[in-house]
């Protein structure tokens, strides 16, 4: 269903002269009509007093399916999962006051990870705004810093225009969440359904094509590099599947190594020899060392996040830095860039490939043999190695075995936040974009379960797995209800170590092992919890039974939760310790040095 539909050209529908034009409609009817005309097939939401007119219209139609979540935060994460897997904006509907405030974490998450979301919030009637009415909150005020843009609709006649504009703003330029706050009386009031005719925003026109001179300069700088590297990020995913294909083509024609941010995994095939794995705090030895020692770097759709750079002073000190980004404010924010290109990733890659061919830059390129020899030596470190055990399931082992059984199945994987997330990024292999859902920027525990729901709704026949942790899972476990209601065949793979593992790891490394409140006390019996919701529950603790359990989970025709009891005190390596540079990475078995000073301790 969702996978085949695309957003139609807004100019083609709903324009003045449309069959329903000028017939008076309620604001709620207008909302549904505009959403249908824009190609929306799914809304994730939760009803309440201030959106009853919209829910009444939803009841009367069958073009849009409504997925009832159990908490508004989950509605936004589900919409994010839907958006990230389909490339279409996710649509959310929540009520005023607590409905809107509960959505704020999801909106902030979408803001940080540049996910296109349209969130319609109910609001008290216009004459009550500002009166501290029941379930009133200043939604546009609260969501201003956590949305790309937001609207309070005070004129019923403007409802169609605002919805079209919101879709345009959410999906063009750097994508992001947009809130439309709809007073209840606007939903009830009738007005002619009319579009003003201009489909886009009056003035907002993000730059898509990069400056030609800058792109040529970038191509030549890359061709001159003896130690080049491509550092790709989530912007490639946002630019659509074509951008991933172009990235792969460019990397292969130039022979350059590729590393990826957490958000960019899948843009370049993980199985390709040119892929060095993820970079950054828990990135691979080879990726981080190659970033540190490169002489020219192409950063594309990536924003030099502190999780990627480590200590700024020590970040890739000798390289010429090229940055391609659609958002001017991402350039020169954390790291000074030599050649900035403001462009959509696909557009820029298309030009780089063309320039490379036109100018025969491959002939001018110095041999990369020595560079690859060096990279192979770093690879021989085998930085993801860990000590396996017969007594307990090592978390890395659990994910290696999971990867073994999902290989070739084009599974969609979501994660929560913490150790399991980093291990999943290290041990699961993504060869295609739009198969990996994770909360990178905001680091929202509880993201994964609802995101998996969104993906499964979009792709009912695909294998969708939430790789979870015991602590994160509890942050949105109410969504077991949603899974049960819609009988979504999602697989919940809880890596249960009875700790907030990453918090415990930092406490052990930086706070002399004082494990302050990081033990997951009073955990529920996850197996029984699942069964209470009518979901198949399983658990495994014996390493000898791990493979059978994973296979049973995958092969079960319906929702299933597998409580995988893993080693309790295992740290996630490699790790760039707080306040250190890329080439100061720790591996499993290294003697752990305490942070150098208070400044290092202050790194989050």
């Amino acid at each position, binding site marked *: 269903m969702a996978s085949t539909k695309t957003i139609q050209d807004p100019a083609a529908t709903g324009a003045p002269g449309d069959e329903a034009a000028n017939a008076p409609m309620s604001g709620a009817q207008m909302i549904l009509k505009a959403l249908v005309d824009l190609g929306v097939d799914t809304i994730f939401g939760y009803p309440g007093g201030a959106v009853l007119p919209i829910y009444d219209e939803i009841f009367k139609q069958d073009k849009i399916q409504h997925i009832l979540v159990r908490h508004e935060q989950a509605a936004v994460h589900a919409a994010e999962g839907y958006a990230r897997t389909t490339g279409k904006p996710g649509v959310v509907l929540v009520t005023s006051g607590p409905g809107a405030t509960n959505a704020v974490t999801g909106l902030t998450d979408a803001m940080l990870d540049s996910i296109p979301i349209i969130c319609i919030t109910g609001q008290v009637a216009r004459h009550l705004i500002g009166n501290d009415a029941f379930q009133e909150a200043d939604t*546009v005020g609260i969501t*201003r810093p956590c949305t*790309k843009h937001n609207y309070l609709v005070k004129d019923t006649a403007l409802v169609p225009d605002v919805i079209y504009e919101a879709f345009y703003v959410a999906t063009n330029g750097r994508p992001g969440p947009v809130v439309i706050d709809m007073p209840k009386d606007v939903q009830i009031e009738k007005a002619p359904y009319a579009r003003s005719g201009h489909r886009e925003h009056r003035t907002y026109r993000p730059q898509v094509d990069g400056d030609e001179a800058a792109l040529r300069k970038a191509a030549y700088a890359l061709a001159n590099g003896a130690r080049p590297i491509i550092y790709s990020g989530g912007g490639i995913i946002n630019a659509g599947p074509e951008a991933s294909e172009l990235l792969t083509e460019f990397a292969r024609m130039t022979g350059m190594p590729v590393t990826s941010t957490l958000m960019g995994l899948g843009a370049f095939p993980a199985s390709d020899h040119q892929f060095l794995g993820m970079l950054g705090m828990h990135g691979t030895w080879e990726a981080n060392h190659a970033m540190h020692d490169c002489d020219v770097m192409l950063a594309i759709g990536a924003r030099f996040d502190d999780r990627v750079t480590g200590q700024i002073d020590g970040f890739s000190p000798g390289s010429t830095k090229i940055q391609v980004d659609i958002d*001017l404010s991402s350039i020169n924010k954390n*790291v000074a860039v030599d050649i900035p290109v403001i462009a959509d990733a696909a557009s820029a890659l298309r030009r780089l490939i063309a320039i490379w061919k036109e100018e025969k830059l491959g002939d001018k390129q110095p041999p990369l043999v020595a560079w690859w020899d060096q990279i192979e030596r770093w690879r021989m470190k085998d930085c993801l190695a860990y000590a396996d055990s017969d007594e307990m399931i090592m978390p890395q082992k659990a994910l290696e075995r999971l990867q073994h059984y999902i290989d070739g199945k084009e599974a969609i994987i979501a994660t929560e936040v913490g150790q399991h997330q980093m291990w999943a990024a290290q041990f699961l292999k993504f060869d295609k974009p739009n198969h990996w859902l994770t909360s990178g920027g905001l680091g929202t525990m509880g993201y994964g379960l609802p995101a998996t729901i969104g993906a499964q709704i979009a792709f009912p026949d695909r294998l969708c797995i939430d790789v979870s942790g015991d602590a994160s899972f509890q942050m949105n476990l109410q969504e077991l209800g949603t899974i049960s209601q819609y009988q979504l065949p999602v697989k919940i793979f809880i890596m249960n170590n009875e700790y907030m593992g990453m918090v415990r790891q930092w406490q052990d490394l930086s706070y002399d092992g004082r494990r302050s409140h990081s033990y997951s006390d009073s955990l529920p019996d996850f197996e029984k919890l699942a069964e209470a919701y009518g979901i198949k529950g399983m658990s495994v603790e014996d390493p000898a039974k791990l493979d059978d359990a994973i296979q049973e989970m995958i092969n079960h025709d319906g929702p299933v939760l597998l409580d995988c009891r893993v080693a309790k005190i295992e740290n996630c390596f490699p790790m760039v310790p707080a306040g250190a540079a890329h080439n100061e990475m720790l591996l499993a078995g290294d003697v752990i040095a305490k942070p150098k000073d208070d400044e290092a301790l202050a790194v989050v």
Partner: protein
Amino acid sequence: MKETGPIAVHTISVIVDNEAGVLARVIGLFSGRGYNIESLTVSTVDTSHETSRITIVTSGTRMVIEQIKAQLDRLVPVHKVADLTIEGDFVSRDLALVKVAGVGEKRVEALRLAEAFRAQVVDASRDSFVFELTGAANKLDAFVDLMSELGLVEVARTGAVALSRGQSGL
């Protein structure tokens, strides 16, 4: 990013859609990201009241100033951002209302200085004046400083409004 390099004062002009909440967006951006606002003025500037012009005086290192402009530019209702400080010569004016109370010699001296500064008397009583003074910020500073010894009661100032010199505009 850590602050490196000299801190400079910049006057930035921003043309925005004249819609509800736009000033809150701009101010929220400055407070949320920890940028300085030395002064900020806003008013509609076209006859149809569709756009407003915001003049912001801010300070920061070169990278911070570039960030401020880029962050302003990506706000959806922002049409145009111009850094008057680096784009050539510009004129900048501030308006102050200065209330001074006193009698006798101090009162005469205040009036004499006001004339020297080409300030207008916009309110007068037997023992007070309100002066209106327009000029560059440092001229207003100097006047207020002089008045502080002559019975200064209170000051209201607009903050800077500014335009580039020459024929072209935003």
